[in-house]
């Protein structure tokens, strides 16, 4: 669990109810310290060569595992993002352009997280991704500090993000013996 102390002056102002009412235009909840949690909530397994997966409402992708070739199963993990124990609203966009799986690299647009992936056939088949923007009480939830993992062997890997991070991209080269990398990032909100 990561706790943000919002701007120090806001906390000090909060000590004085009168001053808070006058000075702070933001709702009390967002002026106080904000706690953000990414909590795994759902997983689903599909055959890799015919997979069509989108996380349930208000969840984002935080993990993927695959063992074997394109005929084997792929398991996706989705998570909630909570700000002060209230779900972050996940607004899904359209499917991406298609990429040839054997030479693909996708990153979500700025401040968006991955929520879906579809793939057909083998490494010569196509892969599409789907991203979503995030908001909490009408405020944009930002996705920052993107990092790529090292190489994982596609035919035998299980990658799950840390508790504060969500998936925002994936790259793959070659067939099932080729390497897969994931891009992940922190979620945060502005003070």
């Amino acid at each position, binding site marked *: 669990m990561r706790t943000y102390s919002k701007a120090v002056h806001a906390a000090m102002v909060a000590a004085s109810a009168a001053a808070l009412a006058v000075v702070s235009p933001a709702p009390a909840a967002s002026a106080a310290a904000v706690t953000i949690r990414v909590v795994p909530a759902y997983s689903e397994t599909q055959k890799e060569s015919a997979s069509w997966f989108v996380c*349930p*409402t*208000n969840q984002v992708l935080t993990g993927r595992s695959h063992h074997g070739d394109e005929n084997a199963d792929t398991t996706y993990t989705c998570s909630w993002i909570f700000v002060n124990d209230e*779900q972050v609203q996940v607004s*899904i966009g359209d499917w991406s352009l298609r990429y040839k799986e054997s030479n693909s690299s996708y990153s979500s647009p700025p401040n968006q997280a991955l929520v879906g992936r579809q793939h057909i056939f083998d490494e010569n088949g196509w892969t599409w991704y789907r991203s979503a923007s995030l908001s909490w009480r009408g405020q944009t939830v930002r996705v920052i500090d993107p990092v790529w993992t090292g190489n994982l062997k596609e035919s035998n890997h299980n990658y799950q993000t840390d508790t504060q991070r969500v998936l925002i991209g994936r790259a793959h080269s070659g067939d099932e013996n080729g390497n897969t990398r994931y891009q992940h990032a922190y979620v945060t909100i502005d003070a």
Partner: protein
Amino acid sequence: MKKVASVALAVAAVAALNIPVPASAATIKVEYVYSGTVKESGSEFTCPTGQVMTGRSHNGDENANTTYQCSWILVDGVRVDVFTGEWFGYAKESRSNFSTPLDQAIVGRRHYGDENGATEYKTGALYWQGQQVRISNRTWTGSYTESGHTTQAGFNQVMTGRNHSGDENGKTQYQYGTVTFAG
């Protein structure tokens, strides 16, 4: 997609549900406003924007019609926004057991084929003026015979789950939860 569009705009019989509450608490109303009928097999149904499922009836086998009831939710007289994602929860109808994720209501159901076909659901999260509306006290109904039944949410409840076993003569149960809002 073949969608039989017998759609009745039912004026809410619930309009009289104005219960007295302390001034400080939010007044919540779940108001039945729409019903739609589709053939059970090979069809999908999603409540209109801003509405959630509060009832379902079916009489016959997979070739017969299914009618869904949808309601909107009001907090202090202002509509709650229903935020929906994609279809999920793929399961064979003959042994499907679905519950919505935390604080979400069912807003759609689709089903293909007979009892061996697949069933999926669409769910919605609820927000009132940007703040999340919760669903608590989930309870399952008793068993209905799928081939001839009607179920409806109780006071301030919305549908949050459904399970079914067997064919149209098998049993169906529904899960309902109560809408709550802390403010």
